[in-house]
């Protein structure tokens, strides 16, 4: 029963969707990238979008409402973010693979209960809850009082990334709505995915935001073990060695989706 969703449907908004499509359509499933809180579609447009298209997969990245060039949404909820993902996924020509990063992985997990993805990848997933907050008190403290999650460059990238590039990326970050941040702290478990898609969890043991245990817990929840890239930061897609995880993900997709 979805009486709440029927009674209060999510208000439509303008959404930014960036895309890179392969020159020849080889019939591969489209890949939809979902950035985390504070991040916009641009974080994937930087390297991964083109690379994914070069490997023959039509690639798309959405900015959740209130992020990137999507319309402002100061009162957005996690449900609204999941709605944005399901909307874009359903608009693609074929059944999509969804790749969610950070808190975007939690949004993806909620969207998977509303859209039968072909497969899903959860990158450095932040599934919220007090555990995540306690691990990063300096990041989450302002959020407790209605401020934005603090996402300094040092927490997001490895030392290999030149510091001016890292600072440049960090300066472009925005913030999620206060309500969504609260809901992240509450850490409601998503409903099981529909259509039983294969789910891969990818992360780094050196991620300063998501602990190794949290990574393994999420992966276990989906019946697997995480694929790890040591030495990389939380934002795998912007780090110096960005090519390794995306290649591994696309290899996995070729085999399982």
């Amino acid at each position, binding site marked *: *029963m*979805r*009486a*709440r*969703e*029927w*009674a*209060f*449907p999510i208000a*439509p*908004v303008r959404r930014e969707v960036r895309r890179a499509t392969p020159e020849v359509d080889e019939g591969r499933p489209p890949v939809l990238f979902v950035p985390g809180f504070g991040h916009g579609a641009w974080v994937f447009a930087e390297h991964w979008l083109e690379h994914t298209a070069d490997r023959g997969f039509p690639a798309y990245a959405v900015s959740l409402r209130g992020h990137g060039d999507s319309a402002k949404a100061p009162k957005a909820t996690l449900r609204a973010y999941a*709605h944005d993902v*399901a*909307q874009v996924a*359903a*608009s*693609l*020509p*074929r*059944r999509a693979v969804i790749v969610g990063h950070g808190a975007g992985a939690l949004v993806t997990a909620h969207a998977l*209960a*509303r*859209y*039968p993805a072909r497969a899903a990848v959860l990158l450095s997933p932040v599934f919220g809850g007090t555990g995540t907050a306690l691990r990063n008190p300096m990041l989450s403290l302002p959020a407790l009082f209605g401020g934005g999650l603090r996402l300094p460059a040092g927490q997001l990238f490895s030392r290999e990334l030149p510091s001016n590039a890292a600072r440049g990326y960090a300066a472009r970050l925005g913030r999620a709505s206060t309500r969504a941040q609260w809901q992240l702290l509450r850490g409601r478990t998503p*409903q*099981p*995915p*529909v*259509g*039983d898609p294969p789910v891969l969890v990818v992360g780094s043991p050196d991620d300063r935001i998501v602990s190794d245990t949290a990574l393994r817990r999420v992966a276990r929840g989906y019946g697997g073990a995480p694929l790890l890239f040591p030495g990389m930061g939380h934002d795998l897609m912007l780090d110096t060695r960005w090519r390794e995880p995306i290649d591994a993900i696309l290899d996995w997709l070729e085999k399982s989706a």
Partner: protein
Amino acid sequence: MTYSAGYGDPESGGPATAWRDGWPVYDRSGTVCVIGAGPSGLTAMKNLKEHGFGVDCYERDTSVGGAWNWRHDRSPVYASTHLISSKPFSQFPDFPMPDSWPDYPKHTQVLEYLEHYADHFDLKPHIWFGTEVVKVEPAEGERWDVTTRSTGGYGGERIHRYAAVVIANGHNWSPKRPEYEGLEDFKGEVIHAAQFKDAAQLRNKKVLVIGAGNTGCDIAVEAAQQAARCWHSTRRGYWYTPKYTLGRPADQVNDLMLWLKLPLRARQFLAHRTLKSTVGDLTRFGLPQPDHKIYETHTIVNSQLVYYLGHGAVSPVPDVARFHRNSVELKGGEVIEPDLVVLATGYHPSFEFIDGSLLGVDASGRPRLAMHAFPKRQPTLAVAGLLQPDSGLFPLVHWQMVAFARMLRVREAAPAKAVAVQRKLEAELDRRWTTAKVKDSTRHWFEISHTTYLKAIQRLLDELGLEGAK
């Protein structure tokens, strides 16, 4: 692609493993047959595929969409058809309609949605277009022999054996024509709503629309704008709800009350108050007083009828008594002279390809099915979308088909459990899925309340061990 080369063609290697009446039967092993590629057929295919079944779908037309494809012979859709349930109730629960669409999409958008659904889930390669099902007969091991032939009539008939069959041939295409004294001698034009396609058919004519259903009201509204005169004949009084109340789509307001878990009486009280203050008392226009409370039958959703009644462009009249050569006599004695009579009197369910007893069809033509979907003692047969809900149909068919696919899987994995579930379903064969106190007319055969029905499907899915139907 799940089917092997050589569809029913002995020369290209299709293995005939049995014979029926002198015809070869080609075994499709665990594949499920879906009859019809309308919304119900498409969601049946998608959910069966998702549960790992091979699917063959036979569609008599050359494209998907069924009733919503107005190019199809049997489509009841007319140029101005719009949905009467708002988007959240009209879309498949796992495939949202685009945000950019209006609250109540037009029929062309619904067709676009269904075509996109078919492409998105790669369903078209499983559909045999231009092929109609002639016969569905039980075979050994609770399997089914399905005889098909091309709609054009060329080529022979072919028989395939399937593990299960989903009948999704729609129930809004076989017109129900009431019998009136003198109708044959009437010189004016008489059409069924099924033949109504465009408002131009009404232009400058004196039109009598018979029937108070949503279609009848829609056509009366069209006639109000196009025809020289419009009479609208209704037998009973119904509740007319506007498409918007309190600034929102009316069905969303209703579900807001359901979400608040207000009891039926409280909802009825609030709805009566709201209608009284917005629509007012419709008997002042000459409409009959409803003989039931609101929500006891699904309401007529039409904002414009009241508007045109108030402008005198639609004249409400009682039921027809008899037809004369050039006029129509109404109960009450009034005589009117329409040029065109539109019978918006509904449709009969029709399953001409299967022995009615398999669907428990009684003398009146009504199939007796558990949850209006599952026939008695036929665990591998289902009828999809045979419902008259107080909301949109697509979400309900979606869950019906998830349940059916799950039941088929449970039959393989845990046969004893499947039998127990089937028994329980059969025990509820005559259960009603609505609180409506309605006359036993064909119009209300499949009347359901979407919340009562979905709760029942949820229970069924829980019994089958499936989560995620919340």
